[in-house]
């Protein structure tokens, strides 16, 4: 049951230099893959581009064929009220349950704002959020 809420994020290794994001985004465009959330994490001279896309397996294949290093990471997407306190609600649920957030990013869509979370205990997080009335993205949205 929890599994159906675990979303496959694609993580792409990228050097920190001009044109790399353009190369990744261009490849996904050419393959007709839609990106609906994304972030860049940066370290010393390189970074990881993280993205939720509509067809993760195709995105993986497309980018790997071009020589990119790509892997899948399990994340969850939590719908937030798009008003003050929305983030606070979700952070409290996880904090109370002793679940650590490794990283997070968010987008504000037509229907709702969505918080993408990478947590240390993903199935536990799903149970806690659903148990406290939260709403999660279905993994099937990105299959």
């Amino acid at each position, binding site marked *: 049951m929890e599994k159906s809420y675990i979303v496959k994020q694609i993580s792409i*290794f990228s050097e920190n230099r001009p044109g790399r994001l353009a190369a990744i985004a261009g490849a996904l465009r050419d393959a007709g893959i839609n990106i609906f959330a994304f972030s860049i994490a940066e*370290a*010393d001279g390189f970074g*990881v581009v993280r993205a939720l896309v509509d067809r993760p397996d195709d995105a993986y294949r497309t980018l790997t064929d071009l020589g990119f*290093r790509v892997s899948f*990471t399990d994340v969850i997407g939590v719908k937030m009220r798009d008003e003050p306190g929305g983030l606070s609600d979700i952070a409290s649920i996880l904090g109370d349950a002793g679940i650590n957030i490794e990283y997070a990013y968010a987008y504000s869509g037509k229907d709702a704002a969505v918080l993408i979370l990478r947590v240390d205990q993903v199935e536990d997080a799903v149970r806690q959020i659903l148990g406290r009335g939260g709403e999660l993205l279905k993994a099937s949205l990105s299959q």
Partner: protein
Amino acid sequence: METIRPNELADLQLKRLKWSLHQAQNVGLYQRKLKEAGVSPDDVRTLDDIEKLPFTNKKELQAGYPFGLLATSLKEIVRIHTTSGTTGKPTVVGYTRQDLENWSELIARNMTMIGLGEDDVFQNAVNYGLFTGGLGFHYGAEKIGATVIPSATGNTRRQIEMIEDFGVTAIHCTPSYALHLAEVAESMGKTLDTLKTGIFGAEPWSESMRAELERRLGVKAYDSYGLSEMYGPGVAFECPERDGLHIWHDSYLVEIIDPETGERLAPGERGELVITPLVKEALPLIRYRTGDVTRLMEDGCACGRGQKIERITGRSDDMLVIRGINVFPSQIEHVLRALPEVGEQFIVYIDRVKHLDEMTIEVEMSRAGFSGELQDLARMQKNITGELHNTLGLRTAVKLVEPGSLPRFEGKAKRVIDRRGAI
């Protein structure tokens, strides 16, 4: 001779060194060099006194072309080999009858060391012309009583047929030709079951190449080191331990120097190999700079023979001086190759930033090296930096780059880009 006691060896070396210096006095170049240095052969009373003597380099040998370096008359010289002369005039190496005897004795010693003898059928698949590897091994192998097949090079299918038809047990060739042999044998469906021993030299080759040659040819592979100026092959050779090469101290006096300063390095430090041959009649040399990089290994060998040198790890011409520390690109390569998270390619950049040398190494990630997590990448980067620091004694900046993003090279790779201007 192979297990001679250290004090007896030192006595023998000194005696032979004195003889060799007197022999060198027959050569105009050495008369001049010693005079300029203000030393005479009689000033050498201990082995350490050799440090008073000047070095000899390849250019000086080339300048003496053809016979300027010979210490005996041509009447006494029974054979001539030359170097290939790819970097200028070839160097002419003359051999007296005694030189040929000494040389084949050394080759015989090496072959006996790895268990070869009269029961073996030995195929000598190297060039038999002016190149020293052909005739050098030929006479050494005859000396141990092996059945020698002077197959030379070329016609690989015929070479493979000979291995099979003659029941060849040991082969000598370059490591690259050995790989070619393996490929052709595989394509012919031949398994070369009789072949047990491979002697490979004349080119640098890696441990991973050793593993590949052993797997594909079914041999135990041994590294052979030599140079024409020191007769040819036979100077140093691996014993069955295959952890470094025994260099024959009774015939060659070995020093390791800093190629920049010429100073002798402490035991165990890596630097340029300098050899003074102790028994050469026709071409005696004093402190000849080989240009090869190695170190004297401090631990004794389980086989009981004398002190070994490490397998040659590069050329001293390639040495970099970074913040006063000597670095050989081969050391960097060695560290990176041992790390599974690192891919095939790397490039070293050297810059001078505010009067300080900075070394940046771009390292391609391996295909297997990515978990998707940033912290794993950061850890990997730290690990590579740490391993390099351990080996080089130097802080470097390691940059992880995407697989396939660094230039590929055909032939000799250019992995070091020194962007420091002249001071």
